[in-house]
C-alpha cells in the first residue's frame, strides 16, 4: 500500500467512528483524542476497524503511534511492510 492509500483508509475509518468530522479538515498533527475528541471507546473502534481493513493488529502499547494522522500513516506503513516481509 502507498502512504496515500493508508492515509485514505485511516481517514475513512476515522470518520466512520466520528461521523461529524470532515476528513478534509483533519490536520497532519491533530491529536485524535486531544484535538478530535475521540474517547477510549472511539479509539478502540478505530483500532478494530483498522485491524479488519488492513490486517494490522495494533497492540495497546502502540496506540500512541496512531495518535495523529501523520504518525499513523508512518506506523501503519511500517507494520504492513513488516507483515509482508
Amino acid at each position: 500500500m502507498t502512504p496515500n492509500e493508508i492515509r485514505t483508509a485511516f481517514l475513512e475509518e476515522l470518520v466512520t467512528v466520528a461521523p461529524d468530522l470532515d476528513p478534509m479538515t483533519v490536520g497532519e498533527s491533530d491529536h485524535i483524542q486531544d484535538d478530535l475528541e475521540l474517547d477510549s471507546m472511539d479509539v478502540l473502534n478505530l483500532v478494530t476497524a483498522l485491524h479488519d481493513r488492513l490486517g494490522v493488529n495494533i497492540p495497546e502499547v502502540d496506540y500512541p503511534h496512531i495518535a495523529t494522522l501523520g504518525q499513523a500513516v508512518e506506523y501503519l506503513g511500517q507494520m504492513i511492510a513488516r507483515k509482508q516481509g
Partner: protein
Amino acid sequence: MGVFRMPSLGSDMESATLDEWLVQPGDRVTRGDVIAVVETQKGAIEIEVYETGTVTELTAQIGAELPVGAPLAMIAVEGEEVPEPKAEPEQPAAVEAAAEQPVVEMPVAPAGGMPGGGVVASPVARVRAQALGVDLATLTGTGPGGAVVLADVEGAAPAAEAQAKAPRRRGLDLNEMRKAIANAMSRANREIPHFYLSQTVDISPATGFLASYNADRPPAERLLLGALLLRAAVGAAQAVPQLNGQYEDGFHPSKAVNIGVAVALRGGGLVAPALIDADRMTVPQIMAGMRDLVSRARAGRLRNSEMTQGTLTVSALGETGPEAMAGVIFPPQVALLGIGAPQLRPWVVDAEVIPRQVITVTLAADHRVADGRIAAKFMTVFEDLISSPERL
C-alpha cells in the same frame, strides 16, 4: 385484542413522531420484538411490543405526532381469533388530527419503494422532504447506515420555510435534547434530596489486569477500564438493593440491575440508556453491551426499555480531565455513580509513598430512600471489587 400504545419514553416525554413500522398486519410478534421506530427529543427510539400475538391493524400513520398512550396498532394475543388483517392504516386518529401535522395528509411512500432516486431515508424524512420540496438525493444522511432522517431534511429546508413550520420536533435535534435534559435534571433537583459520598481508589490492579488481558487479544475482544468500573458498580448495586431501583410513589427496588451508562454525544448532548440485566453478564459481555449501547446511542437508535428501565446510572468523565464529579440523579432512579478521570497521585502502599493511578468515585444518593450508612456500604463493595478485578 390488545391495543399497542405509544409508550412513555421517560418521565418528561409527552409525545413522539411515528417514523417507521417494522411489521405489517398479519405478522406474528413476540414479546420484546422491535415493531416500530419513533422520533423523540432524544433521537430515534425503537419501540418493543409487550405482548405475543398477531398484528391485526396498524392504526397510526407514519409522520404523525402522537401523545403518550395514543393507540398505534391492534394485536390479537395468543389463542384469540385473528380477524382479516387490514392492509392500510385507517384515517388518522383524533389525536393526530388535533396535532395539526401537515405531514399526515401527504401520501406515504410505499414500503420498499425508493422515490428519492435510490436514497436511503426514513419514511418520515421522505414525507417531510416532499412537503418542503427538498431533494433527498442532495442530502447527506446522519441516520443508521447513512440514512437520511427527519433532522437532515429539516436542516436542508430554506430557513423561512423552517420558521413557518416551527415549532415542531426533529430527529437528533440538540436543542430538543437540551430541553429534555433540562426537564429531567430540574425535576431531579426539585424532588430528590441528594447527598454525596466520595472515595479515591487505587486502580493499578485494574489497569494491570487490563494490560495483561488485552496484550494477546485482537482489538475486537479487548476490554476498557469502563467495563470493569461498570461491572464493579453492578456488583455494588446487587449488594445494596436499597439503591437499585426506581422511585414512583415510594421506592421500588429492582431484582435486576439495569445499569445506566451516561453517553456523551459528539457535538453535545447526553443520553443515559440502560444495559438491561447487567447482573447476569460477565465482564466481556458487559464490554460488548456497552460498545453496542454507545454506538446505538450515537446513531440515535435506542430501545424504549433501555430509555425507561434503568435502575442505577454510572457517569464517567473519561481518560483525561477533572478528578471528581458529583452528579445529578437521573429520575426515577435513586443513585448515580460519578467517576472522575484517572490521576497520577502519591499513594501510600505498605507504609511507603509511591506514584499510583487513582480515580475518585462520588455516589449521589436519594435521601428519601437511603442514609449515609447504606451509601457507604455501596462504596465499600465497589472499592473491593475494582481492587481485585480478577474476581469481577
